[in-house]
């Protein structure tokens, strides 16, 4: 007993003195560093809210949220109703979603269940690359090329309309959705499929009645997270259509999204002024929308990861 104690003592005092020092310090140091990274979320919320206080005080939260006119630069009669901006964000995200969700779903099923491994080995990196293309490049494509196609297809004078933004956002949503939803489908245990085949179901029947329902919550989370990307996207929508803050849901009209509003108007707003503060209020709204969507997606995801452990 004494002998063992002595070895332990030797180890601690001589052989590992350096390690011991780091060991004692490492926990505290690492914890502090982690706190720094976590405090970013608090900082985002705090600085946004601080910045927006003036606008909420002067204009009033009801007027800001439900006012149907956004006319911040008018000298005599400025108005800061966020409704047109929210309508714009809703419209383009909705258009993007109805295009991207079916295609993304189809692509996910193909990638996860049908594609030959050799095709898969090529398709997966292609989708990752699509997800990695900077939004400004998508914006450029929408502005210079896609716009012309939209104009021609629908017989418009120009294609700088909400639909153009919806289309390019759909292109951006698909890769995110596919890579997240594919994980959910791959997580469905093989036994479930085998049981279904054993009962005589075809591959499609197995997929529709067994695999997809089992992966549903994961797919749902993937859809929510990809919609979140569309809601938060700035550059692509900024370049894809004329930014006009109208409270409309017409896909062939110009609209103005919340993100684009911040990007274009921040340059002309005086620091500390009412307009500046109102733009921070738009930021607060965006932040809250993404926070809610993220929480919902997290909840759903948690459920599916617990279902098949």
């Amino acid at each position: 007993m004494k002998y063992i104690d002595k070895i332990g003592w030797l180890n601690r005092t001589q052989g590992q003195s350096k390690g011991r020092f780091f060991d004692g310090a490492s926990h505290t140091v690492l914890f502090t560093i982690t706190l720094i990274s976590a405090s970013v979320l608090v900082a985002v919320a705090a600085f946004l809210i601080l910045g927006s206080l003036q606008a909420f005080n002067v204009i009033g939260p009801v007027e800001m949220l439900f006012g149907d006119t956004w006319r911040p630069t008018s000298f005599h009669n400025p108005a800061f109703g966020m409704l047109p901006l929210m309508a714009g964000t809703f419209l383009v995200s909705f258009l993007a979603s109805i295009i991207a969700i079916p295609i993304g779903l189809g692509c996910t099923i193909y990638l996860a269940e049908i594609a030959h491994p050799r095709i898969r080995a090529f398709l997966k990196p292609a989708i990752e690359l699509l997800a990695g293309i900077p939004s400004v490049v998508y914006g450029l494509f929408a502005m210079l090329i896609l716009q012309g196609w939209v104009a021609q297809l629908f017989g418009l004078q120009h294609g700088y309309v909400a639909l153009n933004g919806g289309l390019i956002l759909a292109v951006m949503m698909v890769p995110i959705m596919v890579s997240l939803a594919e994980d959910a489908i791959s997580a469905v245990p093989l036994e479930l499929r085998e049981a279904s085949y054993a009962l005589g179901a075809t591959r499609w029947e197995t997929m529709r009645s067994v695999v997809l329902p089992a992966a549903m919550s994961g797919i749902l989370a993937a859809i929510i997270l990809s919609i979140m990307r569309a809601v938060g996207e700035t550059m692509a929508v900024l370049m894809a259509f004329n930014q006009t803050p109208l409270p409309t849901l017409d896909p062939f009209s110009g609209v103005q999204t919340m993100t684009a509003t911040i990007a274009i108007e921040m340059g002309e707003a005086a620091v500390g002024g009412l307009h500046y503060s109102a733009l921070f209020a738009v930021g607060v709204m965006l932040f809250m929308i993404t926070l809610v969507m993220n929480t919902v997606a997290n909840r759903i995801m948690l459920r599916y990861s617990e279902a098949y452990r």
Partner: protein
Amino acid sequence: MNAISRNAKEKLYFNIFRACGALVVLTLVVIMAYMLMGSLPVLSLDFLTEPPRGANTLGGIVTPLVGTICLMGIVFAFAIPIGVLSAVYLSEYQGKGWGARFWHIVVSNLAGVPSIVYGLLGLALFVTFAGLGRSLIASGLTLAILSLPIVISAAREAIQAIPSSLREASMALGATKWQTIWHHVLPYALPGILTGIILALSRAAGETAPILLTGAAFYMSSMPDSIFSQFMALPYHIYAVATQTMAGMNGSPVVYGAAIALLMLVIGMNLVAIIVRKRFREKYRW
């Protein structure tokens, strides 16, 4: 329902899914092809080494390219150490209780915040509050914050993939916790962490909205001479030339060329990340 119609149905659906997959690849090809075709007249090495001229409508892109590389340097210096060490803490020291769940929620929420909102944070925190002004360092720090969640979640995943038997073996030989992490966990997790770092840097290189609010300039006659000066950056350069010059609006080769340069930078980094991950996945199989 008889077997033939069931099989026919399957074929039909499978072809629809196949078409969806093909459509996605087609978009990638179409976008790349248009960007390449548009940039053909300026595609040369000179384009990369010449500064922009004629109100950004002629010349090359060396000034914005250098600005973007500087931004990546700042992100690397700040986001990588903080992100990786946070990931070490979260996966090695933090238990699995509600604490772990809390941190997971924080990190995933951070990853979901729109980039323009990070721009607002940078504007309020670094440009105004900290008094850094519209500068390289303000934009770099904003991008560093934006990349933090990417680094953390990638590094965390890489560390958690290391089997615990490795840690236990090291501990059984008398190594302390930190020694185990330093000598055994981190070396094996390095490829995964590296992949995350590369992806975070490539994302930072392509972001436009945050730097638009925190210091990117339409035109600079010279390279940024200190971290407190304004700068040109490739993604903002594309946006500015495309929307604020007549030539850009009409699709001048200069703007396509800048887009191709940015694409090459970002896709190149992505490819490196994919290769690194693939090679090491084959090397270490637990």
